[in-house]
């Protein structure tokens, strides 16, 4: 299964792309595969302040509702406006077209708590 090396990962199966003080967040290929056909996405609004570890959105497959958690604290600076109309992008392109939100980091130090690709692969295998 495909897990890009340049990304950081969380135990809740989100990926994080770090570019200076802004991070892009989505769900991993493992997460979308576990969920199955995704049919609904709920995202926060630009300007919302997120707390690390708290729900920022919801992803629903035909069968299940799943919360998505903020991997870092900060302000939402951009959301993927296309997703509510094309939730299947999360299945088809979890790392590109399926990105969910961009967060301006409140504290860059928190990134140390995220997993690198090797650690995440091990985590998925144990999960």
């Amino acid at each position, binding site marked *: 299964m495909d897990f890009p090396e340049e990304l950081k990962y969380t135990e809740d199966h989100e990926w994080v792309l770090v570019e200076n003080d802004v991070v892009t967040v989505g769900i991993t290929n493992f997460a979308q595969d576990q969920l*199955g*056909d995704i*049919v*609904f996405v*709920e995202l926060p609004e630009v300007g919302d302040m997120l707390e690390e570890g708290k729900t920022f959105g*919801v992803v*629903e*497959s*035909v*069968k299940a*509702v799943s919360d998505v958690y903020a991997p870092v604290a900060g302000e939402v600076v951009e959301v993927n406006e296309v997703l*509510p109309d094309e939730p299947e992008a999360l299945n088809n392109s979890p790392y590109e077209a399926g990105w969910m939100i961009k967060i301006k980091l409140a504290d860059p130090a928190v990134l140390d708590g995220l997993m690198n690709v090797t650690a995440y692969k091990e985590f998925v295998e144990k999960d």
Partner: protein
Amino acid sequence: MKITPLNQIHRQLGARMVDFGGWDMPVQYSGVIAEHMAVRTTAGLFDVSHMGEIEVSGAQAFEFLQYATTNDLANLTDGQVQYTALCYETGGVVDDLTLYRFAADRYLLCVNASNSDKDFAWLQDLQKNTDFSDLALINRSDEYAQLALQGPVAANILAKLTSTDLSAIKFYRFKEGMVAGIETIISRTGYTGEDGFELYCAAADGAALWQELMKVGESLGLLPIGLGARDTLRLEKAYALYGHEITAEIMPIEARLAWITKLKKGNFVGRDAMLKAKQAGLSRKLIALTLTTSGVPRDGYPVLSGGRQVGYVTSGTMSPSLRKGIALALVETTVAESDEPLQIGIRKRQVLAERTALPFVK
């Protein structure tokens, strides 16, 4: 966990398996939406061997079933299937089932997997507490494998494996015949709203029957279908699911099943309670709702009118055919029969839901 005779096949196909009422069952193979659309446009094959089969036979079988079930057996003929229910004295539902008439004194009841032990015990108790002595009840659930072959080309696929004249088996009729050299009950029934068959064979033949059907069906678009699509397919047709639209606390006449509840046929278990409830006026009614904006209604979500909860969703999903959220909901009768706008509470949102004629998908 219990397994069906096809468990190994599901695993080989890479199905995602789930615990379904104590059964290790496939919830999806290629994906719920792809599987759903295959059944609507070509065909799908379901392992439904977890369903229970109870044989009722003897000189008093007819009389007993007429008393135990809600529908009227009087006009049934050999080779006919009937959708019916077992009820408690309260009018609540023990289970819904299909009843097969093999002969005036021999019937097979196909019941829900998770209810089959409860149903069998219920029927045994009923026999004990009444004076139906010339009657044999046998739980044959472990003896049968059952496959559902459903979809517009289901008959074309089945015809490749049997010399039985399928055009002679009308809707809700069955025949016994050979399919791929396997003794099979060929029943023109299903839970998808498409043309199709439910095929019963000996448990030991189940895997072979599956493989033969897949082999001849593949070129016609036949896909294996899991429980995920089984649910979306039945819900688009507004078919009741036990534990959702009907439960021990919901009477069939509240759940749009008056057509299988023959209050005039004579006495049966639950009839008095239902007559009384009907005379007093039913307080709840099952309605169909379609969301006007995006969102997925789920069972248990509240139905609201003017900010007040007036009922709840019994089953909800994203309809793969309509690409909209659809729901069955049990609501107060006065609200059901009014045209007050209704909303479904989805987390913090209240989403407008339009009353919809049944079924959702024609």
